[in-house]
Structures are given as structure tokens and as C-alpha cells.
């Protein structure tokens, strides 16, 4: 791929981002709407000196990733919601082993088999660890094909920097749509050398390398927990990322990620034409979550209300409400079942909120 600007699908762009980051191992299992990822990987990863395995299940895929990562490779898997549930066991072990890896979730509608339409029902799962035990995964939320590539690229960097799994929380719309991607800021890199801790065949003359998650004695486990917690605290300080759009003079601030954040931009443009002073705050990392900047908006006299739009029953809105901590009314505008937003779906409740910032129709009340 010589041209720097290429027109491609979100799922394929994610693979190109991975290749540029030096991804050498991919394991995955087919599930819509992310099939383009294993398909593209199976075709191209070999040219980048990597290995592709179509695993027998998502459980196997994530455990293969654990092995590949322990052996020192930059490794990635992808799936969609039901498959990500199966990966949670492995993600927990990988987090506890402090191994880097990248997991992409092209979220579809659940629970259960649900449907293959885009959705955001896996926000809690992604941002609260997802599997058993007390851990966190760095989670990036792209909203364009460009960002699919860019965030996978960045996820590899962050995963290695912190020796922690990094998730890319996409959705069916972003995965499936086609847009031009500019790769000029994603040069091919050599993956970092991990021979000081990875498992390999060069053990002569060095201490053996051990990777484990078991500490039977509480006294042994407690310091490990403490180390992990300190790491998570450092990640929270260092890695919060977000962007905003027309938010400098906004009176109503929309908070959205993924495909709804694209609709929000159209809603903001249309709303401003009719005199609604709208702006957007879009978290790029949903863990760590940009609590601080949202709190600043909430504390500004200009901002009258904060509106969270999600394709679920209300997940990220809890993080926003936590950031706002009662300083301004928080409203929630959802879409269910795999239905997608139109700008009007957002503007209609926003007009009512402008009339009455405490409008009970959409007011988010913590129960």
C-alpha cells in the first residue's frame, strides 16, 4: 500500500493501522459485523511477517493472544459483542499478567444474539474491566475510518507503554462504512524489543522468565494489586484524550462517542442555524474517562445542560453524571434495538431541554 490516502472500510483500516504498528499476530473467529478484520488479516498479515489463525472460538483466540504477547509479539484480536463476552476470561488473565495486546470490539446489538446492527451496549463491559477481578483496560472509541486505523495504531503504543490490554471500542457503523484514510502519520514501526521479559528460546545465561496470575497468599497478592492500582492511577493521569466541536460558546453540551457523535455534529450544525448554541465533547478514551474536562463545562455559567446520546439504555451517561456531580442537569437521549440516530432525533429533545433545562422527559436521574 504505497498511497498515503486510501479509500477503505473501517474494519480494513483497523488492520492497516495494526500493520503499521508492527502487529505480528492476529487470532480471531468470524462474527458480523467485524468479519472484514479476520478476512483482511488472513490475506495481508503474512506480507508483514506476521501470523494469522482462525481460532476455534473467541476463548481460544484471546488465549492465543496471551501466548503471542507473552512471547514478545505485538498481537491483536477483534470480535463483536457476543465474541467479546467470551474473550473476557482471557482479558482478565492478560491484564493480571500485565501483557500488552489490542482487542477490537465492533459492537453489535445485544444482549444475547440480539442483531447485527450497530450498538453501544458494551460500554460498561469495556470500561469496567469486563471479566472477573479488579482491573481496567485502556479503551479508545473511534468515530471514523481514519480513527479506526489511528486508534488501533495508538492502542498498540499504549498497550506496550503500560503493559496492559488496550481496547478499541467501535460499532457496526464505523466498522462497515467507507472513507478515505490518511496514513501519513502512521509510519511503519519496528515493534519494541521485549527480550528482557518475554518467553523465548534464548534462556542460556539469563534468569528464567515467569508469567503468572496466581498468588495464593493474600500477603503476596496485595502488593501485586497495589502495583496494578498505582499503574491505573498513572494511566488516568497521563492518557485521558477527548476532542470537542463548537463547544467554546455552547450552552448545551452534547457528549457522545462512536457513530452517534457523527450524527451529533450534524445536529449541532442544524441546531445552530435555528439559534440553538450546541457543542460536542467527544471522549476518545472512555477509560480513562475525561471526567475533568466535563466537570469544567459543568462548572461554567454558560452551560445550561448536558445531553448524552447513546445507542443503549444509558451507560456512558453514568460517567458523565459522575463528572457533572449535580452541578448541571444531565439528560439522556437513547436509541434502542440497533436503530440509529438522525440529527432530528437529537434536536427534538434538545429543543425541549432549552425550554426547560429540567425537562423530566429526558432528565437522567440516578436510581
Amino acid at each position, binding site marked *: 500500500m504505497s498511497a498515503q490516502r486510501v479509500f477503505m472500510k473501517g474494519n480494513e483500516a483497523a488492520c492497516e493501522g495494526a500493520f503499521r504498528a508492527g502487529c505480528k*499476530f492476529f487470532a480471531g473467529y468470524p462474527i458480523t459485523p467485524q468479519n472484514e478484520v479476520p478476512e483482511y488479516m488472513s490475506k495481508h498479515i503474512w506480507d508483514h511477517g506476521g501470523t494469522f489463525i482462525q481460532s476455534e472460538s473467541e476463548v481460544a483466540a484471546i488465549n492465543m493472544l496471551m*501466548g503471542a504477547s*507473552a512471547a514478545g509479539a505485538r498481537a491483536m484480536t477483534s470480535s463483536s459483542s457476543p465474541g467479546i463476552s467470551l474473550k473476557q476470561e482471557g482479558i482478565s488473565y492478560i491484564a493480571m499478567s500485565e501483557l500488552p495486546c489490542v482487542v477490537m470490539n465492533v459492537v453489535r446489538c445485544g444482549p444475547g444474539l440480539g442483531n447485527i446492527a450497530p450498538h453501544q451496549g458494551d460500554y460498561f463491559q469495556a470500561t469496567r474491566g469486563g471479566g472477573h477481578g479488579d482491573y481496567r483496560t485502556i479503551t479508545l472509541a473511534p468515530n471514523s475510518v481514519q480513527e479506526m486505523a489511528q486508534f488501533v495504531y495508538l492502542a498498540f503504543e499504549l498497550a506496550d507503554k503500560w503493559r496492559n490490554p488496550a481496547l478499541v471500542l467501535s460499532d457496526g457503523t464505523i466498522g462497515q462504512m467507507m472513507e478515505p484514510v490518511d496514513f501519513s502519520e502512521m509510519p511503519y514501526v519496528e515493534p519494541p524489543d521485549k527480550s528482557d521479559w518475554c518467553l523465548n528460546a534464548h534462556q542460556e545465561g539469563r534468569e*528464567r522468565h*515467569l508469567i503468572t496470575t496466581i498468588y495464593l497468599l493474600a500477603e503476596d497478592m496485595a502488593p501485586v494489586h497495589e502495583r496494578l492500582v498505582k499503574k491505573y492511577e498513572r494511566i488516568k493521569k497521563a492518557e485521558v484524550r477527548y476532542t470537542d466541536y463548537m463547544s467554546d460558546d455552547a450552552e448545551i453540551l452534547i457528549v457522545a462517542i462512536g457513530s452517534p457523535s457523527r450524527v451529533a455534529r450534524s445536529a449541532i450544525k442544524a441546531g445552530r442555524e435555528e439559534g440553538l448554541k450546541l457543542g460536542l465533547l467527544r471522549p476518545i478514551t472512555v477509560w480513562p474517562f475525561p471526567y475533568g474536562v466535563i466537570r469544567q463545562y459543568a462548572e461554567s455559567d454558560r452551560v445550561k445542560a448536558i445531553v448524552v446520546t447513546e445507542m443503549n439504555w444509558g451507560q456512558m451517561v453514568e460517567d458523565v453524571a459522575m463528572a457533572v456531580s449535580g452541578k448541571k442537569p444531565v439528560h439522556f437521549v437513547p436509541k434502542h434495538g440497533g436503530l440509529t440516530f438522525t440529527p432530528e432525533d437529537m434536536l427534538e429533545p434538545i429543543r425541549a431541554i432549552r425550554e426547560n433545562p429540567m425537562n423530566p422527559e429526558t432528565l437522567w436521574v440516578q436510581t
Partner: protein
Amino acid sequence: MEAVPEKKRVTVDGQDYELVFGRPASLTSKPFTYCPGCNHGTIHRLVAEVIDELGIQHRCVGMASVGCSVFSYEFFDFDFISCAHGRALAVATGVKRVQPDTVVLSYQGDGDLAAIGTAETIHAANRGERITTIFVNNAIYGMTGGQMAPTTIIGQRTTTTPEGRDEHRIGWPIRMSEMLALLPGVAFVARTTCHDAKSILKTKVAIKKAFRAQLEDRGFSMVEILSNCNVNWRMTPQDAVNWVGEEMTKVFPPGTYKDVFAEDQEKARADAPSKTKAQSSEKTEV
């Protein structure tokens, strides 16, 4: 850790003696923490001896599974990773594909390999992963306190089959070696036991062949070793090893179920010109 350091030679009353049986170098100095008489220890030693003899200690990477051998990495002296229950062969696949120069070993119990990890086992074998699996079949879940395993034999009492395993309620003991032998990706699979010195020596021969299959890039290899869990079987160690030899072997017949090396020889014999064929058949008769 041992109070008495190992001496390669000693002199007693003017007579020189040399050590002919000691601790293999591929084991750490930590004494095993298994119950008295448990064959997990025997099997660890055999694996370490084979690794020493093949000179591959510094290339070996072990997969510790979940079961009584969850701490096997404390006893084997090379790189190790501990895996989730049943997932050792998926993790092993990742390691081996990324570092093909490693010699990858998975050490798994019957619950780990033949219940929760059945899919990972069958598919790693079917892909012909260059991995060597040591499968310790003790017909029970040792670590969790003696529940039924997929390999528990009919009539055997466990804490979850208090009246003995009843095939009409819970099915039959699963024969992994026979099943895996059907897969083209498998280069070597044998079932051996550890109930007496002779069977232990045979087990070592099988383990060596299994590693050879990996080293010569032939495919997946596994040795299923019938082992005792005297504590949960509520027997003395000697009664337990006798039960392995007398009862378990009836349900799990020892033998070589797949052997690419033997197949090679057979093929060579069949392909050879008639003269050498005659010679070789003479030889086999002798």
C-alpha cells in the same frame, strides 16, 4: 534448598562411586509440594530428564495449567506461563507461532485437558501445532477435592458421584488418546502409566518421542499418563498405583496410538527394493 548437596562422585572406604541417579538439571531445587506418592512428581522428573537428555532446557517454554500442577513452574527450571483452566494449548499456540525456536510444553490434568479445555486440545492437535503435551490422567479432579473428572471410570466413587459413576446419568470415561490419534495433525500420541518402574521407564521413552516429534517439526504430540491421586481415591500410595495398573488400564489401555516415526519406518520398508526388504524381515524375525 536440599540440605545435602548433590556430589557427582564420592569415595567410601577407598572405593570410588559415581552418581548414577540424581536430580535432573531442568528441575529447580524446590521439592515437590504434591501429596506423598503422587505421580505428578514422577512425571515432572521424567519430563525434566528427557529435556536434559535432549539438551533443550534453555529453549523450553512451559504452559502451567490449572489443577494440582498449577505450580509446576516452581519445579521446572525454564521459561513458564500459567494459563487459565483449559486454555494451555491456545496459549501454547500463540507462543510457538511467535517463537518457533522454542520447545513448547503443556502440562495438563484430565479436567483441564479433557473437560473445560476439550476444544482447545482438539483444535491445537488438529492444526498440528508443534507442541508437546503431557496429559496427566488421574481419573479425578485432584485440586478441587476429588470430584468426577471426564476420565472417572464407571463405578468409581468421587465426591460428585457418591454412588459411583453411572454412565446412564453422566456418560462414559473419555479416551482422549484414541480420539486424537484420528487427527492428521497429530504426529505422536501414546498412553502410558506410572504404576511401577517398568511402566515409568516406558513413559520416559514415550515422552522423548513426543519431544522428538516437535523438534523434527512433525506435528502435535501428546503422552497421556495414567497417574494416581491416592488422597482423593482414599487409598495408600501403593494401593493407588496398583489400582492404576490393574483397573485403570482396563478402561485406558496403554499403547502407542499414533507414531509418525513408526509410520516412516514402515513406509521405508515398503518402498525399499526387495533385497533390503528381505533383509529387514529377516531381522525382525530374529
